[in-house]
């Protein structure tokens, strides 16, 4: 549903007018667009192509952030070192970088949201056309509170966590307006709230005001957050990984909303993300950050066509893309599959005791030596399948056969013995390793318990395993918190392959990792699989990752198997509408192609 542009315009005008006084008089001459029409500074015209000769809304110069560690006893950590960029009116500026690059710290520093251990230096001048310029760095708390939400708004990654669960969203929108636009009457505030919700394309906005956050899906909640952020027509909207926690199809929906918003409001968007696909889809200009410094700033097409910095090239090369050529299937002909689901049904009880069907009659098998990818959105039941194979989820009906045993039918002793032949890699490596174990202990655990190794032999095997995942063997005595995510996932893989498994179950093993780390972990995974030849059930939502790794692909939707087949067949020429939708929803890291897909 779309809202006529005029409605938005008038509302924007009324709110901004009441908040910050008459707008038209103080527009600087150097802004030709705005000078001709007093209000167009608030509402950008359609077709927001990057314009370079406008005065920036936000001018960041030599921004530095360092964190004092241990009350100054340990040298400070310099998270951001001299970052400069401009945000032009009406544009979408993407800040990309991997975790630890300082991109989030930069945005938090702008709003003064860092803790008291942070020392912020440099300058960030905020001042859209017709607004009083203000220096954000070093601004006193009260003045900063006035800027937050009203002139610079922020959208966080976890939308359901950022909304207060005990108030209706109508109340929360109203509160925001009451705080920042006290001149509005109750009825005006309500109208504005309805308008904001329709701006982010929520159906029945007037009804939705009475809804509580839990009644919205993840994508809707994120749209409400965006609406709330836009409540006071901020000059800049900081969006920190706004779609990272969402499924591809939902991400598409939020990106669509953001994209169309640019045609309705004048707000500039600073999009902080690690996803090159999202950048290609939405951004006008891109700032690439690494280690707290800006590596490259370029218009989006230029960045993707001719990346200047070596790091940008690396980053782009690491992004997996659908469309890898045919390769031989690793499956070995055998009498019995390594893993077989037969008409599997998994039901959980919800809080009211009702049965919720997570998996609904799925038949699927994994042959020895074969990698089968299970693909689907969250809630599709793909993780439940994996958990079932591991005996962590109840089998309501149907059967599972894992490396020759059937959990639930065979004796618990036999099932437990079979576990020695199954390796597991979970999504979050930091959470799936015992924090009280050194990584050596974690890797040695299966050897100790199942293979009964002790002493020097155990130490030797552990060291070998760590080296096989390209970690120094001397790290046995390190603890998980001392390692990075990618290193931890290597430890998980080492633990999973320690007994030379027949079957490996990997549940989203790379989704918590940065792209470049993901690339190396996937490479390692492929090598290990090739040399050990185990069967693998690879659960993932990322079709590009699946394309790089899998032999066969199974697509799940709402607990049912939608489509199964060879990788090139399913991803190359999908038969089912849902598979096509899934493929189309994932943004491609190529602005030209992405634009063509949008147009088509």
């Amino acid at each position, binding site marked *: 549903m779309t809202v006529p542009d005029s409605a938005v315009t008038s509302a924007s005008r009324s709110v901004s007018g009441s908040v910050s006084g008459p707008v038209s008089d103080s527009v600087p001459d150097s802004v030709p667009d705005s000078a001709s029409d007093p209000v167009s500074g608030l509402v950008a015209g359609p077709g927001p192509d990057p314009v370079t000769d406008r005065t920036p809304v936000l001018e960041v110069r030599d921004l530095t952030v360092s964190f004092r560690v241990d009350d100054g006893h340990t040298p400070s950590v310099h998270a951001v070192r001299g970052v400069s960029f401009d945000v032009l009116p009406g544009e979408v500026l993407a800040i990309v970088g991997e975790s630890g690059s300082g991109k989030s710290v930069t945005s938090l520093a702008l709003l003064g949201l860092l803790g008291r251990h942070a020392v912020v230096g440099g300058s960030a001048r905020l001042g859209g056309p017709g607004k009083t310029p203000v220096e954000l760095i070093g601004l006193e708390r009260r003045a900063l509170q006035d800027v937050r939400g009203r002139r610079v708004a922020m959208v966080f990654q976890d939308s359901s966590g950022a909304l207060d669960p005990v108030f209706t969203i109508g109340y929360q929108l109203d509160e925001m307006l009451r705080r920042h636009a006290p001149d509005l009457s109750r009825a005006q505030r309500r109208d504005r709230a309805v308008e904001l919700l329709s701006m982010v394309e929520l159906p029945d906005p007037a009804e939705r005001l009475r809804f509580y956050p839990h009644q919205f899906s993840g994508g809707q909640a994120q749209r409400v957050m965006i609406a709330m952020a836009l409540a006071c027509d901020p000059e800049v909207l900081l969006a920190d990984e706004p779609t990272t926690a969402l499924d591809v199809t939902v991400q598409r929906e939020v990106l669509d909303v953001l994209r169309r918003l640019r045609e309705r409001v004048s707000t500039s968007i600073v999009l902080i993300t690690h996803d090159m696909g999202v950048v290609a889809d939405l951004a006008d200009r891109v700032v690439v950050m690494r280690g707290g410094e800006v590596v490259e700033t370029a218009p989006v097409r230029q960045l993707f066509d001719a990346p200047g910095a070596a790091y940008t090239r690396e980053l782009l090369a690491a992004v997996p893309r659908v469309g890898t050529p045919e390769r031989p299937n690793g499956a070995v002909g055998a009498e019995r599959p390594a893993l077989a689901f037969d008409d599997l049904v998994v039901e959980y009880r919800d809080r009211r005791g009702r049965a919720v069907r997570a998996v609904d009659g799925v038949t699927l098998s994994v042959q020895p030596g074969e990698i089968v990818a299970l693909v689907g959105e969250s809630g599709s039941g793909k993780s439940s399948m994996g958990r079932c194979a591991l005996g962590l989820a109840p089998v309501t009906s149907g059967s599972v056969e894992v490396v020759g045993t059937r959990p639930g039918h065979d004796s618990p002793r036999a099932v437990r013995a079979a576990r020695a032949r199954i390796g597991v890699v979970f999504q979050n490596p930091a959470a799936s390793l015992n924090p*009280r174990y050194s990584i050596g202990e974690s890797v040695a655990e299966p050897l100790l318990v199942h293979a009964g190794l002790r002493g020097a032999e155990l130490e030797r095997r552990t060291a070998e395993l760590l080296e096989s995942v390209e970690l*120094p063997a001397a790290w046995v005595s390190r603890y998980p918190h001392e390692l990075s995510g990618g290193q931890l996932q290597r430890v998980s893989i080492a633990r999973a392959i320690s007994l030379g498994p027949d079957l490996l179950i990997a549940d989203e093993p790379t989704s918590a990792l940065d792209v470049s780390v993901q690339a190396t972990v996937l490479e390692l995974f492929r090598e290990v699989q090739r040399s050990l030849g185990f069967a693998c059930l690879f659960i993932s939502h990322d079709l590009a990752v699946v394309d790089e790794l899998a032999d066969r692909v199974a697509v799940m939707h709402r607990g049912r198997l939608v489509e199964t087949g060879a990788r090139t067949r399913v991803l190359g020429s999908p038969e089912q509408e849902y598979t096509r939708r899934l493929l189309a929803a994932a943004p491609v890291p190529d602005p030209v192609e992405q634009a063509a897909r949008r147009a088509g």
Partner: protein
Amino acid sequence: MSEPLTESLAATTAAPATAPAIARRGVWRTLRRRPLFWVAAAVLAVLALVALVPLAFAGWFGHPDPRACDLAESALPPGGGHVLGTDVQGCDVWANVVFGTRASLTVGLLCTAVALAVALVVGTLAGYYGGFLDRVVARLTDVFLGFPFLLGAVVVLTSVGSRSAVSVALVLALFSWPTMARLVRGSVRTVRDAPYVEAARAMGLPDRRIIARYVLPNALGPVLAVATIMVGSVIVAESTLTFLGLGLNAPSISWGLQLSSAQAFFQTSPHMLVAPAAVLTITVLAMITLGDVLRDVLDPRGRS
């Protein structure tokens, strides 16, 4: 990674020093460098010594016998021969504090240890397995929590024939394990569903190992904190019972007894209250500090 580096690393691993065997790397090394650990340990060591051989300390100021009381010297303020003054019976406060240490520490530590042991077993089983056992434990603890503690203690203690520090400790433990069990249960439940516990289950480890190596070490933090505080509250609870005539019998000496007899004269002779209260506070503080330091150091994240 370069080849020589790998080689050298492999060589160091072959040496016994770097193998998984040194999992507890640095616990003692880190502990050794914490001044708070030494302070707390020293205080507790002195208290232990006092509890074991009170005679060696009682006589320091010339009045070694806590039961040699002279009514003519009732409620003397500190100074002169009685360094901490005398109580209302004319007994030396210092000697009483010294001789009371054994009974008070026995009650405090024994009761906490017994309650903790029971709570760990029951709470862990209930928290980890859930189901029927969990419901039984939850209701049972509800009953104990709803039951007035004093009434219960009165009933049990009057039916116990002889009352010693040990029997008082056991009765107190009987009424304090349910709270601890609740805490353990809650703590275990939050850890039970952690991904690393699921990973351990998926690896096919026996439950015993999962509980001992994965669940308990990660769930013990808050329990340890409460247990150390409990030592102090138990020592005070003993004094309440004694005040009601149900704790230790009159010839016994404990800090609790001193506190309860001194509180009536607080306005006229505060010194009788101050001395036992101060040692009690020091004991509890030392326990809490030691617990805190241990908890920090046992967590690899707190280690250097």
